[in-house]
């Protein structure tokens, strides 16, 4: 059976909301467990990295474009760190390669 996107959206919203309010309402003590704190600290970096690569390669019509955007993105993120500079740099890279190579 195919689920509608609405079902997914509502379900996601419920889970996200629970994560946000449970500590605020029920578990008001800070987390002291060192492993758990470390785990929560590293999770965002790992999960965003896994979602970025290699997905970026297949997000464009050629692996080359996505690969170039990936490299440009890493360099710009390292040098400038500004979110919009990095986003724009990645997009322009793909746009340029797409128009120049065609």
């Amino acid at each position, binding site marked *: 059976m195919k689920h509608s996107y609405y079902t997914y959206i509502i379900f996601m919203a419920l889970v*996200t909301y629970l994560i946000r309010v449970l500590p605020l309402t029920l578990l008001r003590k800070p987390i002291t467990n060192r492993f758990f704190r470390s785990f929560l600290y590293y999770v965002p970096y790992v999960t965003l990295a896994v979602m970025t690569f290699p997905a970026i390669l297949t997000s464009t019509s050629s692996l080359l474009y996505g690969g170039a955007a990936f490299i440009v993105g890493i360099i710009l993120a390292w040098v400038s760190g500004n979110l919009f500079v990095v986003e724009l740099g990645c997009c322009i890279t793909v746009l340029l390669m*797409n128009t120049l190579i065609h």
Partner: protein
Amino acid sequence: MGKNGKAPAPGDEIHESLSPFFRGMRDAIPIGLGYFAVSFSLGIAAGNVGYTVFQGFLLSLLNVSSSGEYAGIVLSAEQAGFIELALMICVANARYLLMSFALSQRFAPTATLFHRLTIGFGLTDELFGLGIASKGWLNPAYMYGAFLTSIPLWALGTAFGVYAGNVLPVVLSEALNVAIFGMFLAIIIPPGKKDPVVLGSVAVSFLLSLLVSIWPLTASISSGTRTLILTIIIATAVALLFPLKDEPAQEIRSESMEES
């Protein structure tokens, strides 16, 4: 409104003529403008897998979280099971647990459950940062004002992204496909300059993600499941090998995780 359970800290608000609600609105305007641009790229990703403009709007209005929403977009496009989706959302949004714990310390003992329940809804990295940065007990009116000028823009940005992906020429919309990844890179790379463990974790994550997606035995795993499993394995390994120093609150870094 009688919802102001705040004991002002000395010096706080003395020179402010605006009410807390309007100060919140004002302080969150830059956040809202940033949100519009960022959630635009989420809209591009959502549009690519068939979300309508309204679905994109609803997705962002109800979830207000970029990595969680993106994970959800990927999984819903794969028609993933709900247990898997719940686990993935928990992982992608795990840091909100920490923020929620931290912010709960800032509520006045008299703060009502209602305020806790409604403020929790808008707990993003940036709005958490505003709340933590304000002095004294957290002022619910201040937070509601901040929500008002940021969250609607977040939702509109996604709706606009879906629309733009549909109407822009293919060359442009293809270029916009990588925007979301640029955003992720801007979040995960800069902290690596100061923290070699983060840098190493990111590099290992790139590598393992690539290997798992091309290795014949694991290549058929959906990208959602791959993200979930790899995140748990890698983050567990790093947390065991390089646990944080025992200083509570050092991990709350809304600046470096600037993302919602």
